[in-house]
Protein backbone atom coordinates (compact mmCIF):
# COMPACT_ATOMS: atom_id res chain seq x y z
CA UNK A 1 0.00 0.00 0.00
CA UNK A 2 1.34 3.49 -0.81
CA UNK A 3 0.17 6.93 0.21
CA UNK A 4 -2.05 7.23 -2.91
CA UNK A 5 -3.92 4.12 -1.87
CA UNK A 6 -4.55 5.73 1.49
CA UNK A 7 -5.77 8.86 -0.27
CA UNK A 8 -8.20 6.92 -2.45
CA UNK A 9 -9.38 5.08 0.64
CA UNK A 10 -10.13 8.39 2.33
CA UNK A 11 -12.05 9.56 -0.72
CA UNK A 12 -13.99 6.33 -0.85
CA UNK A 13 -14.70 5.72 2.80
CA UNK A 14 -14.30 9.08 4.49
CA UNK A 15 -12.54 9.95 7.68
CA UNK A 16 -9.81 7.84 9.14
CA UNK A 17 -9.80 8.03 12.88
CA UNK A 18 -7.56 5.15 13.71
CA UNK A 19 -4.63 3.80 11.81
CA UNK A 20 -1.65 1.72 12.81
CA UNK A 21 1.12 -0.02 10.97
CA UNK A 22 3.76 -2.11 12.65
CA UNK A 23 4.16 -4.78 15.27
CA UNK A 24 1.07 -5.68 17.24
CA UNK A 25 0.82 -6.62 20.88
CA UNK A 26 -2.09 -7.31 23.19
CA UNK A 27 -1.47 -4.00 25.00
CA UNK A 28 -1.62 -2.09 21.71
CA UNK A 29 -4.81 -3.84 20.64
CA UNK A 30 -6.42 -2.98 23.95
CA UNK A 31 -5.26 0.68 23.65
CA UNK A 32 -6.73 0.95 20.15
CA UNK A 33 -9.98 -0.65 21.34
CA UNK A 34 -10.16 2.05 24.04
CA UNK A 35 -9.80 4.68 21.29
CA UNK A 36 -12.70 3.02 19.46
CA UNK A 37 -14.76 3.10 22.66
CA UNK A 38 -14.21 6.87 22.93
CA UNK A 39 -15.18 7.28 19.24
CA UNK A 40 -18.40 5.32 19.78
CA UNK A 41 -19.40 7.31 22.84
CA UNK A 42 -18.70 10.62 21.03
CA UNK A 43 -20.88 9.57 18.13
CA UNK A 44 -23.72 8.14 20.22
CA UNK A 45 -23.45 4.72 18.62
CA UNK A 46 -25.66 2.22 20.45
CA UNK A 47 -23.92 -0.21 22.81
CA UNK A 48 -24.89 -3.21 20.67
CA UNK A 49 -23.41 -1.79 17.48
CA UNK A 50 -20.32 -0.37 19.13
CA UNK A 51 -19.66 -3.77 20.69
CA UNK A 52 -19.82 -5.22 17.19
CA UNK A 53 -17.20 -2.71 16.04
CA UNK A 54 -14.91 -3.59 18.98
CA UNK A 55 -15.34 -7.32 18.50
CA UNK A 56 -14.59 -7.17 14.76
CA UNK A 57 -11.54 -5.00 15.44
CA UNK A 58 -10.29 -7.37 18.14
CA UNK A 59 -10.83 -10.51 16.01
CA UNK A 60 -8.94 -9.04 13.06
CA UNK A 61 -6.06 -7.68 15.09
CA UNK A 62 -5.68 -10.87 17.15
CA UNK A 63 -5.74 -12.90 13.93
CA UNK A 64 -3.00 -10.64 12.64
CA UNK A 65 -1.01 -11.10 15.82
CA UNK A 66 -1.33 -14.89 15.64
CA UNK A 67 -0.98 -15.65 11.94
CA UNK A 68 1.08 -12.94 10.21
CA UNK A 69 4.22 -14.18 8.50
CA UNK A 70 7.35 -12.65 7.06
CA UNK A 71 7.42 -12.05 3.29
CA UNK A 72 10.35 -14.47 3.13
CA UNK A 73 8.79 -17.97 2.78
CA UNK A 74 11.81 -19.60 4.48
CA UNK A 75 11.03 -17.70 7.67
CA UNK A 76 8.37 -19.86 9.33
CA UNK A 77 8.00 -17.76 12.48
CA UNK A 78 4.94 -15.71 13.24
CA UNK A 79 5.62 -12.03 12.66
CA UNK A 80 2.91 -10.05 14.45
CA UNK A 81 3.01 -7.26 11.94
CA UNK A 82 0.49 -5.50 9.73
CA UNK A 83 -1.73 -2.52 9.04
CA UNK A 84 -5.02 -1.71 10.75
CA UNK A 85 -7.30 1.14 9.86
CA UNK A 86 -10.78 2.23 10.90
CA UNK A 87 -12.70 4.70 8.72
CA UNK A 88 -16.23 6.01 8.47
CA UNK A 89 -18.19 7.51 5.58
CA UNK A 90 -20.83 10.23 5.31
CA UNK A 91 -23.62 7.74 6.12
CA UNK A 92 -21.79 6.85 9.36
CA UNK A 93 -20.93 3.39 8.14
CA UNK A 94 -17.76 2.12 9.80
CA UNK A 95 -15.07 0.18 7.95
CA UNK A 96 -12.35 -1.88 9.56
CA UNK A 97 -9.46 -2.45 7.16
CA UNK A 98 -6.44 -4.65 7.59
CA UNK A 99 -3.46 -5.83 5.65
CA UNK A 100 -0.98 -8.50 6.62
CA UNK A 101 1.13 -11.29 5.15
CA UNK A 102 -0.10 -14.87 5.43
CA UNK A 103 1.12 -18.27 4.25
CA UNK A 104 -0.45 -20.23 1.39
CA UNK A 105 -1.91 -22.71 3.94
CA UNK A 106 -3.67 -19.94 5.83
CA UNK A 107 -4.82 -18.31 2.59
CA UNK A 108 -6.61 -21.54 1.64
CA UNK A 109 -8.26 -21.75 5.07
CA UNK A 110 -9.43 -18.13 4.94
CA UNK A 111 -10.72 -18.56 1.37
CA UNK A 112 -12.74 -21.60 2.37
CA UNK A 113 -14.31 -19.81 5.35
CA UNK A 114 -15.10 -16.65 3.37
CA UNK A 115 -16.68 -18.74 0.57
CA UNK A 116 -18.81 -20.57 3.15
CA UNK A 117 -19.84 -17.28 4.79
CA UNK A 118 -20.75 -15.72 1.40
CA UNK A 119 -23.01 -18.71 0.69
CA UNK A 120 -25.02 -18.15 3.89
CA UNK A 121 -27.52 -15.52 4.96
CA UNK A 122 -27.32 -13.87 8.41
CA UNK A 123 -29.41 -16.58 10.09
CA UNK A 124 -27.29 -19.27 8.41
CA UNK A 125 -24.11 -17.62 9.68
CA UNK A 126 -25.46 -17.50 13.24
CA UNK A 127 -26.46 -21.15 13.01
CA UNK A 128 -23.08 -22.22 11.66
CA UNK A 129 -21.30 -20.21 14.37
CA UNK A 130 -23.18 -22.01 17.13
CA UNK A 131 -22.71 -25.37 15.46
CA UNK A 132 -18.91 -24.88 15.20
CA UNK A 133 -18.76 -23.55 18.75
CA UNK A 134 -20.62 -26.60 20.02
CA UNK A 135 -18.64 -29.31 18.23
CA UNK A 136 -15.26 -27.58 18.62
CA UNK A 137 -14.19 -28.96 15.25
CA UNK A 138 -12.18 -25.84 14.41
CA UNK A 139 -10.63 -25.62 17.88
CA UNK A 140 -6.84 -25.18 18.08
CA UNK A 141 -4.33 -23.85 20.57
CA UNK A 142 -4.70 -20.21 19.52
CA UNK A 143 -8.47 -20.04 19.41
CA UNK A 144 -11.79 -21.59 18.58
CA UNK A 145 -11.39 -21.21 14.77
CA UNK A 146 -14.72 -19.37 14.60
CA UNK A 147 -13.34 -15.83 14.31
CA UNK A 148 -14.47 -15.24 10.71
CA UNK A 149 -18.00 -16.37 11.61
CA UNK A 150 -17.90 -14.03 14.61
CA UNK A 151 -16.91 -11.18 12.25
CA UNK A 152 -19.65 -12.11 9.76
CA UNK A 153 -22.26 -12.32 12.51
CA UNK A 154 -21.43 -8.80 13.69
CA UNK A 155 -20.91 -6.99 10.39
CA UNK A 156 -22.79 -6.10 7.21
CA UNK A 157 -20.24 -6.79 4.48
CA UNK A 158 -16.89 -8.55 4.18
CA UNK A 159 -14.43 -7.80 1.39
CA UNK A 160 -11.44 -10.07 1.20
CA UNK A 161 -8.64 -9.74 -1.34
CA UNK A 162 -5.41 -11.72 -1.65
CA UNK A 163 -2.35 -10.38 -3.43
CA UNK A 164 0.40 -12.81 -4.28
CA UNK A 165 3.90 -11.95 -3.06
CA UNK A 166 5.59 -15.27 -3.89
CA UNK A 167 4.73 -18.98 -4.01
CA UNK A 168 4.03 -19.23 -0.30
CA UNK A 169 3.21 -15.69 0.81
CA UNK A 170 0.17 -13.50 0.17
CA UNK A 171 -1.09 -10.15 1.31
CA UNK A 172 -4.49 -10.48 2.95
CA UNK A 173 -6.62 -7.35 2.66
CA UNK A 174 -9.83 -7.27 4.66
CA UNK A 175 -12.46 -4.58 4.66
CA UNK A 176 -15.38 -5.09 7.00
CA UNK A 177 -18.39 -2.80 6.89
CA UNK A 178 -20.57 -2.10 9.91
CA UNK A 179 -23.74 -0.06 9.41
CA UNK A 180 -24.54 2.09 12.43
CA UNK A 181 -27.71 3.85 11.23
CA UNK A 182 -30.39 1.25 10.66
Amino acid sequence: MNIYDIQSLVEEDGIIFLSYGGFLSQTLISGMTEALEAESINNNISLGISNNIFTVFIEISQNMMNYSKDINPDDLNTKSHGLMMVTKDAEKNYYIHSQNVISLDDKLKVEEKIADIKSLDKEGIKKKYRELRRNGRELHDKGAGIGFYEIAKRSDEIDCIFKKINEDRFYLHLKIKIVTQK
Partner: protein
Amino acid sequence: MENLNLIATKYTPSIDLNTNGIFSIVGKSYPENTFEFYEPMMQWLKKYFSNNTPEKTSVNMEIIYFNSSSSKLFFDFFDLLEENREEHNIEINWIYDADNESSEEAGQDFIEDFEDLTINLVTK
Protein backbone atom coordinates in the same frame (compact mmCIF):
# COMPACT_ATOMS: atom_id res chain seq x y z
CA MET B 1 -10.81 -24.99 49.48
CA GLU B 2 -10.03 -21.31 48.93
CA ASN B 3 -11.95 -18.70 46.97
CA LEU B 4 -10.63 -17.67 43.58
CA ASN B 5 -10.30 -13.95 43.00
CA LEU B 6 -8.80 -12.42 39.88
CA ILE B 7 -8.73 -8.67 39.33
CA ALA B 8 -10.03 -7.31 36.00
CA THR B 9 -7.61 -5.97 33.40
CA LYS B 10 -8.34 -3.98 30.24
CA TYR B 11 -9.00 -7.22 28.39
CA THR B 12 -9.91 -9.78 31.03
CA PRO B 13 -12.87 -9.77 33.44
CA SER B 14 -12.75 -9.89 37.21
CA ILE B 15 -13.41 -13.42 38.38
CA ASP B 16 -14.73 -14.07 41.86
CA LEU B 17 -15.58 -17.64 42.72
CA ASN B 18 -16.67 -18.03 46.29
CA THR B 19 -17.00 -21.36 48.10
CA ASN B 20 -20.34 -20.07 49.47
CA GLY B 21 -21.72 -20.63 45.97
CA ILE B 22 -21.75 -17.06 44.65
CA PHE B 23 -19.73 -16.60 41.46
CA SER B 24 -19.27 -13.46 39.46
CA ILE B 25 -17.48 -12.79 36.20
CA VAL B 26 -17.57 -9.13 35.18
CA GLY B 27 -15.84 -7.16 32.44
CA LYS B 28 -14.39 -7.50 28.95
CA SER B 29 -12.96 -10.71 27.68
CA TYR B 30 -10.40 -10.85 24.90
CA PRO B 31 -7.23 -12.36 26.35
CA GLU B 32 -4.29 -13.10 24.08
CA ASN B 33 -4.48 -16.72 25.13
CA THR B 34 -8.03 -17.33 26.28
CA PHE B 35 -7.85 -21.02 27.22
CA GLU B 36 -4.70 -20.48 29.27
CA PHE B 37 -6.21 -17.46 31.01
CA TYR B 38 -9.38 -19.30 32.08
CA GLU B 39 -7.61 -22.56 33.01
CA PRO B 40 -7.39 -21.71 36.77
CA MET B 41 -11.14 -20.94 36.78
CA MET B 42 -12.02 -24.23 35.07
CA GLN B 43 -9.75 -26.18 37.43
CA TRP B 44 -11.24 -24.43 40.46
CA LEU B 45 -14.78 -25.32 39.30
CA LYS B 46 -13.96 -28.99 38.81
CA LYS B 47 -12.62 -29.09 42.35
CA TYR B 48 -15.63 -27.16 43.68
CA PHE B 49 -18.14 -29.58 42.15
CA SER B 50 -16.28 -32.60 43.49
CA ASN B 51 -16.54 -31.27 47.08
CA ASN B 52 -19.60 -30.73 49.22
CA THR B 53 -21.14 -27.66 47.69
CA PRO B 54 -23.59 -25.18 49.23
CA GLU B 55 -27.31 -25.72 48.57
CA LYS B 56 -27.30 -23.30 45.68
CA THR B 57 -24.74 -22.01 43.19
CA SER B 58 -25.46 -18.60 41.62
CA VAL B 59 -23.41 -17.41 38.68
CA ASN B 60 -23.55 -13.73 37.76
CA MET B 61 -22.01 -13.04 34.38
CA GLU B 62 -21.72 -9.55 33.02
CA ILE B 63 -19.49 -9.60 29.99
CA ILE B 64 -19.48 -6.31 28.08
CA TYR B 65 -17.83 -7.70 24.95
CA PHE B 66 -15.72 -10.72 24.12
CA ASN B 67 -13.69 -12.31 21.34
CA SER B 68 -14.59 -15.58 19.64
CA SER B 69 -12.25 -17.75 21.74
CA SER B 70 -13.89 -16.36 24.90
CA SER B 71 -17.25 -17.25 23.37
CA LYS B 72 -16.03 -20.84 23.00
CA LEU B 73 -14.67 -20.80 26.54
CA PHE B 74 -18.01 -19.60 27.96
CA PHE B 75 -19.65 -22.42 26.04
CA ASP B 76 -17.31 -24.92 27.73
CA PHE B 77 -17.99 -23.22 31.08
CA PHE B 78 -21.77 -23.65 30.64
CA ASP B 79 -21.14 -27.21 29.52
CA LEU B 80 -19.34 -27.92 32.79
CA LEU B 81 -22.20 -26.33 34.75
CA GLU B 82 -24.72 -28.43 32.83
CA GLU B 83 -22.81 -31.62 33.60
CA ASN B 84 -23.17 -30.83 37.30
CA ARG B 85 -26.76 -29.60 37.28
CA GLU B 86 -28.33 -32.76 38.66
CA GLU B 87 -26.41 -32.88 41.95
CA HIS B 88 -26.21 -29.10 42.31
CA ASN B 89 -28.79 -26.37 42.20
CA ILE B 90 -27.28 -23.97 39.66
CA GLU B 91 -28.67 -20.67 38.46
CA ILE B 92 -27.01 -18.32 35.96
CA ASN B 93 -27.76 -14.64 35.55
CA TRP B 94 -26.62 -13.27 32.19
CA ILE B 95 -26.49 -9.55 32.96
CA TYR B 96 -26.39 -6.88 30.25
CA ASP B 97 -27.19 -3.26 29.58
CA ALA B 98 -30.73 -2.84 28.18
CA ASP B 99 -29.56 -1.32 24.88
CA ASN B 100 -26.78 -3.86 24.34
CA GLU B 101 -28.61 -6.12 21.89
CA SER B 102 -25.49 -8.11 20.95
CA SER B 103 -25.01 -9.18 24.57
CA GLU B 104 -28.72 -10.03 24.83
CA GLU B 105 -28.44 -12.18 21.71
CA ALA B 106 -25.37 -13.94 23.11
CA GLY B 107 -27.36 -14.75 26.25
CA GLN B 108 -30.32 -16.03 24.22
CA ASP B 109 -27.99 -18.30 22.22
CA PHE B 110 -26.68 -19.83 25.45
CA ILE B 111 -30.24 -20.40 26.69
CA GLU B 112 -31.06 -22.29 23.47
CA ASP B 113 -27.80 -24.26 23.56
CA PHE B 114 -28.25 -25.26 27.22
CA GLU B 115 -31.90 -26.11 27.64
CA ASP B 116 -31.27 -27.97 30.90
CA LEU B 117 -29.62 -25.02 32.59
CA THR B 118 -31.43 -22.18 34.31
CA ILE B 119 -30.14 -19.06 32.58
CA ASN B 120 -31.90 -15.77 33.32
CA LEU B 121 -31.52 -12.72 31.11
CA VAL B 122 -31.16 -9.78 33.46
CA THR B 123 -31.06 -6.19 32.24
CA LYS B 124 -29.32 -3.50 34.25
